[in-house]
């Protein structure tokens, strides 16, 4: 078991390479995410965001490099042990079998209870708390196959929260959510950050990244092009990443918004 040196570095990605056939999708990506930090992953379509998220979660392809979650090298750790440390919210959630909402969120407790462990009252309480956090209180017995896209996405978020991990990876967590629920999910991630979590979010929307992230990783052509704090993001960088012109307006509260221009 390989340990990394600094304890506050919850998630360390070291020299990650992924290729599909001849095509290099990720080419030597390295970064770290600390405790109490939300990082955004931004880049144009096909820049490797979802592949990176999959490789960091330990479920996707990885040709070279290593990911350390709370000091543990993922390649030397069992799937269950990884899932006790890292939770993932996928970009799209399609439920295929008519499990109830509570049954689905309880699957987030499987890594903790194991193959034969009994689902306890505490596990059910954890799942119900997670459902309350995503505004799905009272949905326990609804069938997941009958939910709307936004409700399904919130069930997937609740399932990840029920894993009670210190590291959260999310792929476009608010893509199917209305503004109220999107704000509520980002507020929830802030709360998790305050409690000590390390969070990585793949995003398309630059303004969500500017508003909610502590640092933003910019990916282009499978490489980590730059890492910036929101206040350091400028039009030159955005133009280099997305190949369009940008205007950035300051906001009265100190933040900023960016718009692409034709």
């Amino acid at each position, binding site marked *: 078991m390989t340990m990394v040196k600094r304890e506050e570095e919850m998630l360390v990605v070291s020299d990650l390479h992924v290729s599909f056939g001849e095509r290099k999708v990720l080419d030597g990506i390295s970064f770290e995410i600390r405790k109490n930090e939300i990082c955004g992953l931004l880049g144009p379509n096909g820049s490797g965001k979802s592949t990176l998220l999959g490789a960091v979660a330990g479920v996707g*392809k990885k040709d070279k490099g290593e990911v350390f979650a709370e000091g543990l090298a993922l390649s030397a750790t069992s799937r269950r042990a990884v899932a006790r440390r890292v939770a993932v919210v996928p970009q799209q959630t399609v439920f295929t*079998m008519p499990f109830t909402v509570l049954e689905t969120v309880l699957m987030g407790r499987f*890594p903790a209870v194991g193959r034969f462990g009994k689902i306890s009252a505490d596990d059910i309480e954890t799942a119900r708390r997670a459902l309350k956090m995503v505004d799905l209180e009272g949905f326990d017995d609804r069938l997941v196959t009958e939910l709307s896209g936004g409700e399904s996405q919130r069930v997937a978020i609740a*399932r990840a929260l029920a894993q009670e991990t210190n590291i959260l990876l999310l792929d476009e967590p608010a893509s199917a959510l209305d503004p109220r629920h999107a704000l509520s999910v980002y507020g929830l991630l802030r709360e998790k950050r305050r409690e000590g979590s390390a969070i990585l979010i793949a995003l398309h929307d630059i303004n969500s990244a500017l508003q909610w992230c502590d640092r933003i990783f910019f990916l282009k052509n499978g490489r980590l092009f730059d890492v910036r704090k929101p206040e350091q993001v400028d039009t030159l960088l955005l133009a280099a990443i997305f190949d369009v012109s940008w205007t950035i307006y300051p906001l009265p509260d100190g933040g900023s918004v960016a718009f692409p221009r034709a």
Partner: protein
Amino acid sequence: MTAGLLIGVILALSTGEAEIGLLGILSYLLDWVTGSGNNAEAGYTVIIQIRFPRAMTAMLVGASLATSGVLYQGLLLNPLAEPYTLGVATGAAFGASMAISFSLRPVAFFAFAGGMGTLAVVMVLGMERSGILGQTRLVLAGVVVSSILGAGVTLLKVLAGNRMTAIVFWLLGSFSVSTWSDVAWAAVSAFCVLGIGLISHRDLDVISSGASPGSLGVDERRSRALLLAGSSLATSLAVSISGVIGFVGLVVPHFLRLVFGPSHAKLVPMAFLGGGFLLLLADTAARSMGEMPVGVITALVGGPVFCLLLWKGR
């Protein structure tokens, strides 16, 4: 369900040309258990050497097929999947047809080898570069390999001359010559798939829910391989014992999922009992209709029931 099975067994043991009452059956069973039975006595032989192994075999084969059906449907995320989707049955039918055509014995061995050989080919074709058995690739591979072997079976039937009847009857499925050795093999099949289903019930929940299994702690490659190998081994054994009996592995899991929900902790044991019960009843009905092939009964009853479920589930 267990009480239903007991009643089914009694019904099966009391059905047949030789009329033996409930007390007679119980006394023969008691003799058998205590080792004081007399094989020279006709009634004892009918109950212990003919009807009882037949009922047990039907029950265990039904349990194997229905439980395998649950595993296949969960694994392939496909409610239309059944134990025969991946070509195991057609492979077994091909093996059995070869054995009958060329007088190779025992037929069951060649059927089993045909089923497992087919599975091996389908698994190789269905494996993605990542080493994971992808559900779409597996189903496609199963359909293609089944078609090829199906054509092979037809060819063998055409070329078999006067052995064609034997092939057709084998393919329709029957328990008419079941022995205690069949019971033993059927038990291996049924308890193997039950064990794997129970050990993996949480993996099956996660896989069938549509989640990314790895992110919820499931070792997807290992789990899929174990589930597929277990359910296919059970299906191959079941088919080699009784021939191709359709619909049990499709209708029973469907019906039970409607009643008990999709959680595999309940679904796996209920399919084991439900499949056993259904095939026992079907075989008893087949016997009381003058040895009708049991596959005909399950298809005639299972087909319309499935249509009804499909209609109601709109």
